[in-house]
């Protein structure tokens, strides 16, 4: 884990993404972008060494958890890292928050070199990790207050901010309950509340809405939007939820095996696969392969249980729909949907395997 000299890495030219759009992000005021990037990542690489087989564990080869990652996140942006489990999202975020030292590359957050001074990250950003163990046995109120105090607030201020944040997120009725006794979504919301106490210009949120109901999700995004409007807060969001990514993100970097394979606005990315539509067919018990048109589709469909997913040109999709909505095929059909491409389709088009992505 030798630290590379900062000079050469900074001048290296980043590999261009396969999908690189010149579209101007419409959701950020141009003035905000001109104030410069909040996060600049160049050539960030981190490998986990190969592990030899031991009793009970198989050998694993060397894994590049992040591989030459380059990113720029502008002020006030909600920037997403999208990819299935194991794509390297959390490893990347751990390097940005100073929790892990990269093998190579640079991380600059608001002018501070985080690779050389990892301890400064804690004074620039608030991090919501996936684990809540450190807070689990505290009450919601004490978790928020303690986090605020450890973020350098005095007692009076920590309590004032705690009350404001709990009120804002609708957690006030749960304030006296220990996190351990809450449901998964409520606990996650309480941890999010703790992350908000003691304002920071950058929020790094690792799957913040996991397990939350729609009300809690709305509370999270409303709180994020308010901070962005009032303080120009920047958000770096890790997600494997494509629907969330499409609705809340200004820009998204798609990660696949530690590499950024695309980086653009959700609309810009979807434009890359605009020529295709997705047809989902759900059969009652088994597909009617005796119908020749259906048999012809068999090889091209991605099957999962009784569901077939097809990516087709629009006129082809129309033909398929008319086939399956008439005759013998229709008798075997339970449900079908025709949809314009989502970020999941983008991910697939980029060579990814969308198994680990969530659509909810």
């Amino acid at each position: 884990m030798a630290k590379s000299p900062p000079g050469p890495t900074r001048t290296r030219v980043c590999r261009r993404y396969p999908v690189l759009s010149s579209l101007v992000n419409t959701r950020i005021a141009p003035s905000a972008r001109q104030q410069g990037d909040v996060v600049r990542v160049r050539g960030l690489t981190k490998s986990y060494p190969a592990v030899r087989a031991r009793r009970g564990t198989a050998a694993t080869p060397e894994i590049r958890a992040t591989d030459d990652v380059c990113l720029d996140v502008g002020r006030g942006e909600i920037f997403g890292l999208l990819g299935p489990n194991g794509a390297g999202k959390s490893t990347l975020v751990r390097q940005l928050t100073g929790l892990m030292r990269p093998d190579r590359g640079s991380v600059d957050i608001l002018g501070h070199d985080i690779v050389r001074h990892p301890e400064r990250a804690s004074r620039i950003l608030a991090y919501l990790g996936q684990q809540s163990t450190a807070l689990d046995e505290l009450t919601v109120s004490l978790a928020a207050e303690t986090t605020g105090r450890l973020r350098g607030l005095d007692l009076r201020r920590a309590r004032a901010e705690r009350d404001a944040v709990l009120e804002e997120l609708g957690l006030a009725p749960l304030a006296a309950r220990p996190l351990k006794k809450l449901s998964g979504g409520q606990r996650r919301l309480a941890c999010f509340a703790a992350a908000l106490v003691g304002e920071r210009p950058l929020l790094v949120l690792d799957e913040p809405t996991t397990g939350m109901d729609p009300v809690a999700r709305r509370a999270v995004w409303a709180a994020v939007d308010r901070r962005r409007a009032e303080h120009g807060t920047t958000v770096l969001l890790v997600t494997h939820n494509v629907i969330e990514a499409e609705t809340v993100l200004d820009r998204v970097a798609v990660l696949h095996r530690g590499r950024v394979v695309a980086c653009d606005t959700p609309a810009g990315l979807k434009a890359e696969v605009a020529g295709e539509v997705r047809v989902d067919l759900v059969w009652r018990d088994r597909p009617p392969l005796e119908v020749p048109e259906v048999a012809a589709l068999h090889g091209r469909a991605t099957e999962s249980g009784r569901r077939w997913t097809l990516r087709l040109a629009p006129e082809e999709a129309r033909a398929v729909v008319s086939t399956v909505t008439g005759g013998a095929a229709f008798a075997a059909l339970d449900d079908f949907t025709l949809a314009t491409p989502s970020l999941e389709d983008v991910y697939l088009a980029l060579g990814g395997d969308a198994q680990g992505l969530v659509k909810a």
Partner: protein
Amino acid sequence: MASAAPAGTLPAGPGAAPDTGREAVALGPRARLWPALAAVYKAQLSRARVARIPLLFVATFQSIGIMILMRGVVDDEAGARAVVAGSSVLVVAFVALNLLAQYFGQLRADGGLDHYATLPVPPAAVVLGAAGAYASFTVPGTLVTAVSGCLLFGLPLGHLWILAAVIPLAGAALSGLGAALGLLAPRPELATLLGQLGMSAALLLGVLPAGRLPEVVRLARDLLPSTYGVEAFARTFGGHPDWTHVLVDLAVCAGVGLASLAVATWAYRRAAVR
């Protein structure tokens, strides 16, 4: 950084000169040692209400049970003093060493340390706050054990105030050791095992009267930090305690406490950034 507390807001300073060719934004405030320590201590203490009370009962009943067992074995006054002092300090070992090792082992294993590591808090505040809270958990159990022991063996209650020094000093030594074991153990099971072993050592070497132990075991007894707390406490049961010896024992305890807390702080730093 409109929200930064005025007292803590500092410009980036000479050490934080922009080294990336663009102007660095001022850093947020840093949590100072004592307020941060107080916050961690308070938070840890509140955990007792949720999770620790049953375990405190276990610690106390275990010690009282041992004293009842030993009553049939010990027939002299010196032995009785050793048993009562050893059992009382065993409560400290159970909670401060064993439970704290498990806590930090667990926290480290499942990423809970990330929470503290991404807050601008001095490592010493986290370790000392948790160690202090765990040492505080032991107070009721130790008192109950000491009083029951004195009544059981007919020892004087007059000098029990010495516990006000024995608990924090033995607590510092043992919780520092517990935190270090928990933070250094590569796996949480190993942290639990080491904590249990440490407690067993405190049980065997602390409760059994030293005079009856073989030479090798007596050497191990001298290496265990809790021994000095036990000895200091045991000496005060006499009619005219040798206060110099008591002070020396407590000083050793304090020295070991400082050293083990320093090691624990180092272990925390090491565990926080991987």
